[in-house]
């Protein structure tokens, strides 16, 4: 494999890892606060649709992004209502929200655009276009560094850089701020937070809402940056992969970055059977290739992660009075 091919492979990796990273960080906030969320998939999907639909209608991708975040927040609020206020089962709530998003997006899309549950194609300012970082053109011909910078680091839509920046920001928020301390505490032992005079409900809702914003970004990225429009079920299981990555990352921001990049790499490799064939020297069944990311996920979970200990109060509603 030559250098350029490698760069292209990594470039694809970054593109495909971005939605996973955003969703993974979303899950991280929520689960660190003790609210499990298997509805990441649904929130991304709804955000993908609304961002595309509004971007198309208004012609501005930024308004689209806002709409995507908005709907994701609405779904987060439902999840919060079910799992915080009404102490329901968080897994069921997540599942229901995912189904709801799957059905509603198509229903609304059909009602709105009559294109079979799809939005029209987005063009120009209705999409996040790649941005060229400073000096990328100038440095392009410098050996090694040039291509690396030009091909791999530069030339992504803004959301990619936002996602990457969110990793240190998340780390800082969680481990260096009062909010982070309380958030982590409420996921470990909500009673400790409650008896310290801090509202468990407010904290958990804020975490769930942050999760909503990040899922909104992830969905908008799918429909307006990676793609130019929405089609039904376009998240294609990414929410679940992000959850796997979250476990793999043991609920830590920097690990989340590496985990999602790894999953991104698996997905990128799946697109390059030629590379795998030339590396292995044998032809690989397409089905095997397609299943590869999932098989590797299982192998990694079984072999390398071992017991990942989730936040101790995770998944349990906080009940003071029986």
């Amino acid at each position, binding site marked *: 494999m030559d250098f350029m091919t490698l760069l292209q492979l990594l470039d694809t990796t970054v593109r495909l890892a971005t939605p996973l990273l955003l969703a993974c960080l979303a899950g991280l906030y929520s689960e660190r606060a003790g609210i499990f969320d298997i509805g990441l998939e649904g929130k991304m999907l709804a955000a993908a649709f609304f961002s595309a639909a509004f971007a198309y209608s208004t012609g501005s991708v930024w308004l689209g992004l806002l709409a995507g975040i908005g709907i994701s927040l609405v779904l987060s609020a439902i999840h919060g209502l079910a799992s915080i206020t009404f102490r329901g089962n968080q897994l069921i709530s997540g599942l229901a929200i995912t189904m709801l998003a799957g059905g509603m997006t198509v229903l609304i899309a059909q009602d709105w655009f009559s294109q079979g549950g799809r939005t029209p194609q987005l063009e120009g300012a209705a999409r996040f276009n790649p941005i060229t970082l400073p000096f990328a053109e100038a440095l392009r011909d410098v050996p090694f560094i040039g291509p690396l910078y030009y091909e791999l680091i530069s030339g992504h839509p803004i959301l990619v850089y936002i996602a990457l920046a969110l990793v240190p920001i998340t780390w800082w928020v969680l481990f260096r701020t009062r909010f982070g*301390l*309380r958030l982590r505490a409420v996921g470990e032992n909500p009673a400790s937070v409650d008896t310290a*005079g801090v509202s468990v409900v407010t904290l958990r809702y804020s975490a769930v809402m942050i999760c909503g914003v990040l899922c909104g970004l992830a969905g908008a990225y799918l429909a307006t940056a990676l793609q130019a429009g929405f089609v039904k079920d376009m998240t294609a299981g990414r929410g679940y992969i992000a959850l796997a990555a979250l476990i793999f990352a043991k609920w830590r921001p920097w690990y989340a970055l590496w985990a999602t990049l790894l999953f991104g790499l698996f997905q990128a490799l799946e697109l390059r059977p030629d590379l795998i064939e030339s590396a292995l020297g044998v032809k690989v069944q397409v089905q095997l290739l397609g299943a590869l990311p999932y098989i590797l996920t299982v192998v990694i979970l079984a072999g390398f992660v071992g017991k990942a200990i989730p936040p101790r109060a995770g998944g349990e509603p906080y009940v*003071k009075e029986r």
Partner: protein
Amino acid sequence: MTTAPAIELKGISKAFGPVQANKDISISVQPGTIHGIIGENGAGKSTLMSILYGFYKADKGEIFIKGQKTAIPDSQAAIAAGIGMVFQHFKLVENFTVLENIILGAEDGGLLRPSLAKARKELAHLAAEYELNVDPDALIENLSVGHQQRVEILKALYRQAEILILDEPTGVLTPAEADQLFRILDRLREEGKTIILITHKLREIMDITNTVSVMRRGEMTATVKTSETSPEHLAELMVGRKVLLRVDKKPATPGETVLEVEKLRVIDDKGVERVKGIDLHVRKGEILGIAGVAGNGQSELLEVLGGITDATGTIRMNGTNLPLSGKGAHGQSRRHAGIAHVPEDRQREGLIMEYTAWENVVFGYHLDPEYQKGMLMDNAGIQATAQEKMDRFDVRPPHPKLAAKNFSGGNQQKIVLAREIERNPDLLLIGQPTRGVDIGAIEFIHQQIVQLRDQGKAILLVSVELDEILSLSDRIAVMFDGHMMGERDPAKTDEKELGLMMAGISDTKATQEQAHG
């Protein structure tokens, strides 16, 4: 001189669904005193204090702090009113450091760094003032229970509490630790702070409190000056009948050896050696009491004997070696070997809380042919057995179809005892038989254990309550840091000597100090 009471509660009522936990309770606590509260399990003590601390909201009633009517809708308000509380079950974040736990909720500003620095200084100050030493950077999960409790007290002091509530603080402490706690409480009282102390131990009430209130079934039945009452009187007020506070037992007549343990070693999940090669034996018709501060390997010892944890070494039961790991090292095979096990934690291990009492009465023995009917379980038969056993052990209410979680702690313990004792084992392992159990039930449980001994059974008792060890055991062994520190005859030792051994002061040294002291 009449000062306004530090705390005055008027007409507090609180119901949890159909359970009326507090009924029209009024109480007044003078500043600069230690006020004791006693009462049976489920009497409503914790509930009342939780209301004062704003953890629960009262259905009715008023709270006055220093004469001022104060609304306490949440813990924030309680903290602002100068109230601090150390809960029965600590409210600490296990994988946070001491410092992080201390500042949680009392941070200055949005960033942690300045708060942590400030707390570190303040902590050093408090530690010096009250002898409350803890490593500020230690993780809570690595601290002993006693130290965790210090963290809880520090939390309250850090928030400048004037009124400190402690809910059953000594249940988990060694005598030395308890003594130290009381010294601290004394010091706080001298400084004019007000303390409310909930405990089941009448001795503590008599030792340290100024006033004591008694609760029964959600009501406040009496408040008396400590100097004007006696333990017997208090016990009677609590339970509503006369209680025997001493265990009545004949001298033991030990027979042949039932259990022999040699070079037993246990290494836990994290690779830490918890039991470091111990030897012991138990004979028929005797109670071997194992004393020790929680976390020194006694729990692991019980778990190994009960087949829950793997180990290396030798365990011989009636002359036969038992497997210590791999296939065959599990609770079932131990039961077949004649070992019954009352575990330390009835709610996590001894019972399935969601199961009914009758299901729990066969728990662990559910595979016995006697409980089977063909391929199925003989549910009707089991229910009848359960009814019988519950009657014999005076489990209240005597309803086999009630879920275990709906029984009070003492009655839950009786269900476990009924199950294990009624199986007529050769050896009974019993851990913390009366933890969190009230006086009435303690009396009953102790009687049962002694009766079993008198039937010629071997009993291995593990307890952190020295009182209990001293009054029940025929021989006492002390464990420290995974080692056996030595053995004592209960008649020829006392709390002080045992306390020193429990603190790891070596056997000979303990005797020397004893001699000097």
